[in-house]
């Protein structure tokens, strides 16, 4: 893997590798990179620091350019591209490589061996790559990552949008219900997307894998025991928790009113999440590879283990702000936008502008780290930087 093939992109917030395709430059128009149709990954042992700095052993996918990464590097491709993945097993027991939602699957790869799989990138959407062996243990111990496929054409995220998804995307910025941000063109900008790969960690299982790894023996982690007694102590989005995922520019939603954003949610763990977003309801546009035709418009949605769910966040002006809904917010809520609320203990206080909201899992045990420390779990922020007419709120970056 050459350096130029690695994208450390602010857009995904994750280590990422582009594996080809005409649709990719528009995702990364601020980045310069070249394409290589072959991805070389290895499986390694590494310690991942949790939000409280405790170090938890994981098995991770690694590439020469990214190093071991938690989760594994995002692989980006365009539908129809020929892609080759080579996976080397640097661990002590057999592993394999699978892309869930496709027929990509290697035979078991024995310690010290590697396997190569070539395939045509499937219909546009989000997929989870993982080690399917000893399920769910190998996946949950860290061997997973997102595989994102862009469409070769069209103005939606899909190769085969349903009529309703096509109509929704045609209406963005071009209808009364979706006023356009003054300074950007109508429609969805394909570079406005996020990946939220949600995961959970029960360090007891990782400690067992670590002991085996250090002893140079094959893992003794029991998948059956994990299925019955997994009790997560850390909860992550793209490998980060709480305040770190909230402030990660590749995870947090950010934009102006009238700039819709796509969120590709994946759950690589064992914990059913109930993701709740403040400030806007969102359209559920794809579930597990099925582009939806009845688009639920919700503030909370279930994300089961292995689920892949796409949200279109419309970036509407928060609709229930009191007062005339056509008055610019700088005139309607000037005092809130100008306010700094003093912090405790002599800290300098919190500016109320730009307008910040949370997205968090409402199955609130996921809002913890190390058994408490609310809200250092599955959470990020949703920031409105400016009004629909092109004028930013105070302090917008």
């Amino acid at each position, binding site marked *: 893997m050459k350096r130029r093939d690695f994208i450390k992109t602010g857009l995904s917030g994750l280590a990422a590798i582009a594996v080809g395709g005409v649709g990719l430059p528009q995702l990364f128009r601020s980045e310069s990179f070249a394409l290589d149709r072959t991805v070389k990954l290895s499986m390694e042992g590494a310690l991942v620091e949790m939000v409280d700095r405790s170090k938890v052993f994981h098995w991770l996918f690694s590439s020469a350019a990214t190093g071991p990464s938690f989760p594994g590097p995002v692989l980006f491709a365009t539908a129809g591209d020929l892609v080759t993945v080579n996976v080397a097993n640097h661990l002590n027991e057999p592993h394999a490589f699978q892309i869930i939602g496709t027929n990509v699957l290697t035979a078991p790869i024995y310690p010290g061996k590697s396997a190569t799989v070539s395939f045509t990138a499937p219909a546009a959407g989000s997929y989870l790559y993982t080690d399917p062996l000893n399920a769910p243990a190998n996946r949950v111990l860290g061997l997973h990552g997102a595989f994102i496929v862009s469409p070769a054409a069209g103005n939606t995220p899909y190769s085969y949008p349903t009529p309703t998804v096509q109509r929704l995307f045609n209406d963005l910025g071009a209808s009364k219900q979706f006023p356009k941000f003054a300074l950007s063109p109508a429609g969805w900008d394909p570079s406005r997307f996020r990946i939220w790969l949600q995961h959970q960690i029960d360090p007891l299982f990782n400690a067992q894998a670590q002991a085996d790894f250090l002893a140079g023996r094959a893992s003794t982690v029991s998948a059956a025991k994990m299925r019955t007694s997994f009790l997560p102590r850390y909860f992550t989005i793209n490998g980060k928790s709480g305040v770190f995922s909230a402030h990660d520019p590749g995870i947090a939603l950010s934009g102006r009113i009238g700039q819709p954003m796509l969120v590709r949610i994946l759950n690589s763990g064992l914990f059913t999440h109930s993701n709740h977003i403040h400030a806007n309801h969102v359209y559920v546009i794809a579930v597990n590879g099925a582009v939806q035709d009845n688009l639920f418009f919700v503030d909370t949605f279930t994300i089961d283990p292995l689920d892949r769910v796409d949200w279109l966040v419309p970036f509407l002006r928060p609709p229930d702000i009191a007062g005339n809904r056509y008055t610019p917010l700088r005139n309607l809520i000037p005092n809130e936008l100008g306010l700094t609320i003093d912090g405790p203990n002599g*800290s300098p206080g*919190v500016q109320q502008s730009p307008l910040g909201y949370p997205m968090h899992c409402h199955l609130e045990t996921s809002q913890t780290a*190390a058994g*408490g420390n609310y809200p250092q779990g599955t959470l990020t922020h949703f920031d409105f930087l400016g009004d629909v007419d092109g004028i930013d709120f105070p302090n917008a970056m």
Partner: protein
Amino acid sequence: MAIKIVPRGDVPPNQINDYFKFSCPPEFNGPNPDPLPPTFSFSRKLLVGIDLLLPDGSKVPMWVIEDPDAPDAPHPLPKDILRRSFPSPTLRIPLDALVNADVDCNGNTHTIHWHGIEPTPMNDGVGHLSFEVTGHFTYQYQPRQAGTFFYHCHKNTVLHFEMGLYGLLLIDPPDPSAPAVPVTYPTGGPGFAAGMNPNALLPTDHVIHYDVEALWVADDIDSRWHTLQHNAFMQKCVPDDPDNPANFSQDGILNDFRPDIFVMTGIARRVSDPSAFTAAENPLFGPLVAPTVKAGQTLLVRTLVAAYAVAQFTLDIDVEVIAMDGHALGVPPLQQYSRPLLVRAGTPIRLTTARRWDLIVRPTSPRVVPVKVEFFNNINGRLLYTATTSITVTK
């Protein structure tokens, strides 16, 4: 060979304050910064401790949000029950009202988040993105969708929500024959709910008349948690190094929820008690859990999952899902990309924490319609409890 480390990263020096407010939100006591004249006002007070009574006579301590202005309840209800109940007293607000919610906090700081209502951050009740209320604050918003919402304290939420600091928040649409008149409907029905009307001529025609209203709030309780303190297992506030590992609590149990009591809208059962939930056992909540409706009438069932278990509702009758999360399916402009959903008798409706589906049931002949609500562990999928109740259809 040393094992590689994937580092957490440090707090960026220029963002220390942003990180600090996470573990230690600012506090505020005062008027709304941008007040407008209200058309609908009410008060809420946090927190009040009450006991949840179980059929065996034992009690579980709960925290609830008080409605200090509610009247005494009529005999034979407990006098205080309209002010202090679990779930916290239901709020009903007319669609499009300009709401002023006067919130008082005694003793400790709290917030109220109006879940599904989408106002400015200071009116949204999330401490680390605005403030926690030390004494008094007037939240202000204007709900522009009629439907099923709820309100809850958003501080140490994992604990405070479990302890009972939540209640239903229902936004009522006007009667389509008098669309300019703001109204609220009596809990239990009759009334109108937002819902797609294929024959609508005006936006205000997108309502469905119901005769009887049921409220199915599924909850679960881990009684171990109900002895904890308000700020249990929270991170220490240290302004200059907010995410120093030394400030993290390490002995908490708030990731470990082991429910031993299951609740339908304030009526509780121990896990060992499979007895059906009936209308007669609780004069306030019973008829909302086990409703009675005449054949040919329309029943509206509002569901809310307040449990940390996955809740699965199964009715032995066809239902039409008319709304999700307070937004009516199929109603233009924003919900024109959806449509109401038919769920056949016996098909489970599986929902997770904070989701709300509004169901319309139109029974045609007298019978008792069995209903079960199954609670599943959200990690291993194990069935934890099955609550059974019924819809009684009379002539």
